[in-house]
């Protein structure tokens, strides 16, 4: 046993990866056991069994891991098929959701980052806008939906608006915080060098606040991806959220679980992208 342990790889990340795989295997096994159909061997009353379902194996109604795997393979083999409004490939649905998230998010960034700069640089504007921010921030973005639908009169644009309104706050607050927290020393250097306002903003304040701003963007993106699913369930039509709801109406739990998995994977990839960006702008003092 000891020699076996010693022969195992020593690197922490390798050990962690092995443990992850073991946990996954255990999870799949438990799932499989819990959902696998049990052959109802009721020899006592075949007539009754036939009456109740033709002696079919009894299931919980939840798909087994194998069924999910099958759906996964089928969807991944052709992710972009389009058989009409209620039958589109998962790739198309995710693309719709991503397009909405990105446009809402970019619009929010266009507003939040310059405004955050202003708030961070001016204590007056900070104090003047703070009450509005504090009231608007805790509002669930979906609460805006009826108002958006009424004013915009377009469901797709309304969901973009909902993404916009939910991603603006973390970016705004973090940008203001980062800009206000730029070290006095660096600003003094800029002052003694008679650096102009724009050069100061882009060459001193922006790089100094960039890690905090990126953190805000990362949080916003996370929230946006959470909210888009709910928003698309409401407005319907296209998107991963609509896909989940549609498959629920089709009573296809296999596709629902598959969609849940995809939402998680896409969310993780988005977060990883921002992680890379964040590392790129982070500096060591």
């Amino acid at each position, binding site marked *: 046993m000891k020699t076996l342990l010693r022969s195992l790889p020593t690197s922490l990340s390798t050990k962690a990866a092995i443990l992850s795989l073991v946990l996954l295997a255990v999870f799949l096994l438990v799932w499989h056991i819990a959902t696998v159909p049990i052959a109802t061997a009721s020899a006592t009353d075949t007539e009754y069994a036939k009456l109740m379902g033709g002696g079919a194996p009894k299931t919980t109604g939840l798909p087994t891991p194998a069924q999910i795997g099958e759906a996964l393979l089928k969807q991944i083999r052709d992710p972009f098929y389009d058989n009409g409004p209620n039958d589109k490939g998962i790739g198309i649905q995710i693309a719709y959701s991503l397009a909405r998230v990105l446009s809402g998010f970019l619009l929010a960034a266009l507003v939040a980052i310059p405004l955050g700069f202003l708030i961070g640089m001016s204590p007056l504007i900070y104090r003047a806008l703070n009450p509005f921010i504090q009231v608007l921030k805790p509002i669930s973005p979906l609460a805006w939906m009826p108002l958006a639908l009424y004013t915009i009169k377009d469901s797709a644009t309304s969901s973009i608006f909902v993404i916009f309104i939910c991603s603006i706050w973390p970016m705004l607050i973090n940008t203001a915080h980062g800009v206000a927290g730029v070290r006095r020393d660096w600003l*003094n250097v800029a002052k003694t060098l008679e650096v102009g306002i724009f050069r100061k903003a882009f060459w001193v304040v922006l790089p100094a606040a960039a890690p905090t701003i990126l953190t805000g963007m990362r949080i916003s993106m996370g929230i946006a991806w959470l909210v888009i699913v709910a928003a698309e369930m409401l407005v319907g039509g296209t998107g991963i959220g609509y896909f989940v709801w549609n498959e629920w109406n089709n009573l296809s739990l296999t596709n629902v679980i598959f969609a849940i998995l995809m939402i998680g994977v896409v969310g993780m990839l988005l977060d990883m992208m921002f992680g890379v960006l964040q590392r790129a702008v982070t500096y060591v003092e």
Partner: protein
Amino acid sequence: MSSHSFLQVRQLRKSYSDAPGTKPVFHAVNFDIEKGEFICIIGHSGCGKSTILNILAGLDEASGGTVIMDAREVAGPSLDRGVVFQSHALMPWLTVLKNIAFAVKSRWPNLNEEKIKAHCQKYIDLVRLTGNEQKKPSQLSGGMKQRVGIARAFAIEPKMLLLDEPFGALDALTRGTIQDELLSICAKTQQTVFMITHDVDEAILLADKIMLMSNGPEARIAEIVVNTLPKTRTRADIHHHPQFYKIRNHLVDFLVNRSKTVQQTFVSDPNLIAFPPQVMPGLEGNTADPVAVNKVPSPVLKQIK
């Protein structure tokens, strides 16, 4: 005092509150600095040394009085005055070269990249950081960071250099090496320097004149000690010089005892506008009449109402 002094500070005062009864941090601060002089200022914490430096830099505003440099009033920061900050204040996201280039570009916005690089390289070589151009500040030791700070300040070729306890955070060995380097750079460039220090030995090594500040609040410059040691002094031989301990004892005695007592005489005579007397403790006892020496650069006193 001659009206042609390079830097003239007159009746400088700083108070953090206008409320009646609050005492200013310092007041009635008067001194002149000539071109090429190296001035150190010594005093206890809270006497306002850093505030004076910040006012000279244009980063802080005086509550009263004037600062005139090169016949122009100092109002706000200027590229004519380079500042070396105690915390080096390098931008951690820029390399050594780019930190200095940022300053050089600010000074000469129309210079092309190649010339900027060559100019920066000259000052990187001057502070002996050749080979570290592409390193980020986090990869440098404390002493090397401060060298970059000094190179950045010299690179804009300011008329005057202001150093706020530049070596305060460094260990004794590193401090010594950089002191020597600063001394040789200043000798080469004839730079006018105003420097805050807490280190008496550092002041004697570097300064031509050492200003002594009394304790705050209502601090003033009590006297100016002229460093009579030869200009060719080095860290290695300075303590063998007969005058060294006379000057050193004078400074230490001021910091330990006289900074308080002097302040009491100032408080009892608040209307006195005085140029601090210049003293030469290094020459004391070498002449027949030490008192006369003390009086040589006679203090200009005048009484206002």
